[in-house]
């Protein structure tokens, strides 16, 4: 304290006190009014260091929250599409069972076929499910329908044009989830094992077996084994017209007086003969025209087999019946079937089942085509094929359900992640509030305290600056 006090000192002192009181007052007022304690970094640099990352983290979490709900929506859209798919497969199964009933009329089968066609169209719709213009089952190819009907000759098939890349989205800090399923894993399957052959109903097995190569067909195909003429036969023997059941190597033996011919240990038939029906030792019929006795009395020849899996569009002829892997290409869909012909002895039709594979669409298409064209087939054959297709529809249904389960699982994990993101957001918001927001109770209390101080300083100033000796000198 100085020895001398002057009026100026009193005035400027009072001025300063009032001013600094006002500054504190206005700062508090700003804090209360804006609700923020830190309005510029220098208000509390340490808090500012926390506020900026917290604000950006909260912003990020808000976006992640939106991503989670979007992901949930997309997954649920996918799941509900697959639920539709599941009902379609269920309905297809019912119709198949109905159609397999032997007492059903041809016309009823026709109308079932029409309904199956409807189901097929619906199933393609399911596989091309969209959400907001994006296809859900095409991998990252989200702007083109991933499944497309391709007409191939008399039949049609559905091709997958998507890819297997996953569409990823961040749903929690550092956690990505896949939004979609690759459609070819839901609607197709290729857990291939050895192809199985079943002879057409009422027919003897042809003796065809799966080759050593890997087939590429899906579901079922019909294999036709036909007689395509003779190879290595003596000039006197030619194929006649009539029933031809035998293929493969055939031994012949002539006997003289009278001239007779026996094929493969079968009963002898008098020659010469035109279109004579011979029977082999194991009961296969073959029609031959024999003009005379050849030079070599006993020998062997080969009945050439024709193999076709595409209704005769392309035929592979077999003369060497020791082959274990004859490649047969289906002209309709380009698939390859590998056949072991070493045991092939008869003509006939076989149903090839590419075990472990299915194609939802092919199953429905085959079903529809079968029911539309069943008039040409014996009843037993139709029933048999229908039961095969029923298996296939069940497998395809299982595939759809697998996809549904996967999406459901992901969707429910979204719930968990969503609440985790929400909780994080709440806790970060609390931290931010602690760092940045005004504690209103404290601030108002402080405001009142400042108010009192301010008023006191005003009063003191008023008192002090009034006193002067001039007031007392009269």
């Amino acid at each position: 304290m100085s020895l001398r006090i002057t009026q100026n000192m009193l005035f400027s002192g009072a001025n300063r006190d009032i001013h600094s009181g006002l500054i504190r007052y206005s700062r508090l007022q700003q804090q209360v009014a804006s609700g923020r304690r830190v309005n510029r970094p220098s208000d509390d640099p340490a808090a500012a260091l926390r506020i900026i990352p917290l604000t950006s983290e909260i912003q990020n979490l808000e976006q992640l929250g939106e991503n989670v709900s979007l992901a949930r929506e997309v997954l649920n859209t996918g799941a509900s599409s697959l639920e539709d798919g599941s009902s379609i497969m269920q309905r297809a199964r019912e119709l198949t069972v109905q159609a397999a009933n032997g007492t059903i009329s041809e016309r009823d089968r026709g109308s079932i076929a029409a309904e199956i066609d409807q189901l097929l169209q619906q199933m393609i719709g399911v596989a091309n499910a969209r959400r907001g213009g994006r296809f859900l089952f095409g991998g990252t190819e989200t702007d083109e329908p991933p499944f497309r009907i391709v007409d191939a000759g008399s039949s049609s098939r559905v091709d997958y044009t998507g890819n297997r890349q996953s569409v990823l989205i961040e749903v929690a800090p550092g956690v990505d989830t896949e939004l979609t399923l690759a459609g070819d894993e839901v609607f197709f399957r290729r857990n291939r094992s050895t192809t199985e052959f079943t002879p057409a109903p009422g027919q003897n097995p042809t003796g065809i077996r799966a080759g050593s190569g890997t087939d590429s067909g899906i579901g079922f195909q019909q294999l036709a084994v036909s007689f395509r003429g003779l190879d290595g036969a003596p000039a006197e023997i030619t194929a006649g017209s009539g029933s031809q059941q035998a293929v493969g190597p055939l031994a012949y033996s002539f006997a003289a007086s009278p001239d007779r011919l026996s094929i493969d240990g079968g009963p002898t038939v008098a020659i010469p003969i035109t279109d004579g029906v011979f029977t082999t030792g194991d009961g296969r019929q073959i029609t031959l025209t024999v003009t005379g006795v050849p030079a070599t009395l006993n020998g062997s020849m080969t009945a050439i087999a024709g193999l076709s899996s595409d209704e005769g569009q392309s035929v592979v002829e077999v003369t060497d019946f020791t082959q274990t892997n004859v490649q047969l290409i289906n002209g309709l869909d380009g698939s390859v079937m590998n056949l072991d012909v070493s045991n092939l002895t008869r003509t006939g039709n076989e149903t090839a089942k590419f075990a472990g594979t299915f194609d939802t669409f092919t199953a429905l298409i085959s079903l529809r085509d079968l029911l539309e064209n069943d008039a040409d087939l014996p009843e037993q054959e139709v029933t048999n094929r229908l039961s095969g297709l029923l298996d296939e529809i069940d497998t395809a249904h299982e595939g759809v359900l697998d996809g549904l389960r996967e999406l459901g699982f992901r969707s429910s994990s979204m719930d968990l992640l969503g609440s985790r993101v929400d909780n994080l957001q709440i806790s970060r918001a609390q931290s931010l509030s602690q760092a940045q927001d005004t504690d209103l109770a404290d601030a108002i209390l402080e405001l009142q305290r400042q108010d009192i101080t301010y008023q006191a300083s005003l009063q003191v100033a008023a008192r002090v600056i009034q006193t002067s000796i001039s007031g007392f000198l009269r």
Partner: protein
Amino acid sequence: MTYGFGLGAGLKALTAARLGMQTAGNNISNANTPGYSRQRVLSASDVPFFAANGQQIGSGVRISSISRLVDAGVDQRIRAQLALFGEAEIAQTRLQEIEGIFNEPGGGISAVLGDLFGSISALQTDPSDRALRGGVIQSGRSLAESFNLSATRLSNLAESSFAEVTALTRQVNQQAEAIARLNSQIIALEANGSSANDLRDNRGQLLKEISGVVETRAIERESGSLDILVGGHLLVSGDRSSAMTAVRSESGRTELRSGRNDAPVTLTGGRIKALIDQEAGEVPGYLGRLDELAREMILGFNRIHSTGVPRAGAFRNLRSHYGAVDGDGDGTRGDEFLSQAGFPFEIERGELYVSISNDATGDLERHRIAIDPTTMSLIDVAAAIDGIEHVSASVDPTGRLRVTASNGYGFDFSSRIDPNPDTFGSLGGTNPTLGSGREGPFDLSGNTFPASLTVTTGTLAAPVTTTVTLDRSDFVNPAAATAAELAAAINSDLGSQGTAADVGGRLMIRSDIGGKDSQLSVADVAPGTLAADLGLPGITATGQASGVEITASGAYTGDENGRFTFVPSGDGTIGASPDLSLDVYDQNGILVSTLAVGAGYSPGEVLEVADGISISLGPGTISASAQQAFSLDTVADSDTSDFLVGIGLNSFFHGETAATISVNPELSANADLFAAGRSGAAGDAANLAQLIALRETQLDGLNSSSIETFYTDIVGDLGFDAAAADTTLRSQDALLRELETQREAISGVNLDEEMLDLTRYQQSYDAAARFISVVQEMTDTLISLAR
């Protein structure tokens, strides 16, 4: 004792009292004048008379002086303190302005930065959505604009220093002139021994004002004149002042020079020094850190973006943003080495992968270009790209690289996995192939050049024989012939019969005739060891009706660029032969995986290889004895050289500093050009994940902090600096006030005191008047006696 004496003493008393009252009145009227020092009348008893009896009798009062009450030491300290206060004040206002520019928390760059990453995350929900893409571009532009605005305002702030210093210097010069004038008046007045109190007060006040602007040293001469020194420069000397001027140095910094000899003035304190310091310190410091941040943003974003593929798929043509500088002044741009071509971002030694895709088939062909900035020019790189089939590249006269794809083809720089890695068909293809069985280089030094091979192609029934001759000139070094060199040499002789290729460093020879009956064999033209040196097997390979279809998928997660080479373990049929497998080797020849593809594998099934890559094989046969193999490039970073970033090809941001950063205008015009993915598929968001990851990435260029941390640190430092400046200013203010109080205690006017003085002198006056009247009465009495 004389009569005159009595009246004289009375008169002196009256005069003294009147002077006392006048001084009090002057003090009262100047009570509020800044710099005024109170004055005090000093009186003394006058020289006494000697009375007749030898006694001394006082002869009244004498005014010895009217003096100012000042403490020169306090004034000196106040001046020094004013300089410190001025400095602190400038620092504080400047930092407050910078705080205003950053506008944090909540309003500045942090918000738009968050928006940018938020919009990228939002785009993940639908990478093909045009509105969301536009959102990313818009946020990018907002960020760029925020950077620009902050940078502009910071540089304006730095610029404003010069103007402020100029204004302050002019003020100081005027005040110095005024002091010089006062000096001459004071000298004149004080020559007769009196004190020029009020002029001194004026001079003191001017000196105080100067001291806040520049720290001064004041020296008072005997004559009463005051010399003022500013950092060694004599600002005022006697009645002369020497002006200072503010100039801008070559480096753009503001400097103060003395007017006379233009010598630089070294400042030790005050506002001007603070302004000059700010110019080189705080403001450029913050701007520099903002520049660093902007640069790393540009670098980080462009590194990811430049290797991406836009929504529309591969590029038809591209032009680089930054042009090469004509460093050697020969009029041609692009012929300098890349490191000297003036690109804003450093191009390093590394590699660039260019992918050429066929629009119709989707087939991808990837080419690797080694880039060495110290030996290659932009023209060299353009030539290397130009050498790739279906794409042409050139450097235009502005030094920019242009790349154009041929019709039906597109190019990009993405690191995506080639979905059909075996387009050459060297593993189970329809055409017979023979491989070297190991990677090059091959030692051919044991051969006499020209060395020949007989290659038999055609069908088993109708073989075609071609002689392939290798010359010494085909190889850089015959002791280390590469597969690529060999392939080129063989292809030139093989014509339409077959094709040789470098498949992952291995030499592969393929017959151009395929199918079940086709054949291929390679033999030496005897005698020779060439086939053996090349590792080619001495067998006859046959083709097959349909080739093994190989598809790769996934995204490579490894961190080294390289390749996976797939080699069959034996001869057999996919999905049928027992124990058939594919061994997968990486670029270092290390076995990374063995894939079972024999019995038990269903062709078409997807097999996981390693590092996020999967492959599937269709049906068909593969052969180890023909040494079949195929390789798949595994690219983690398709531009390790930063070439694309350096020249600004397919970039997201343009510019290089906070002031120049902007979003590539082509993206602004067409949001579909934003490369969200790496394949052009509508749902591909591979790049978005990378961009989001950039948010957390610790960047080397930012002292291992992430973008947001670096920015937060800037704001935090600013907060601490501003808070510290605030505290400094307050404490300097308190010190100044304390000194002012001290001065006020000595020199200030107390009105009560003056009132009392007034009353006191009034009473003295009354008494003196009374004394005179008494003397007069005495005289009257005497005179009446004489009548």
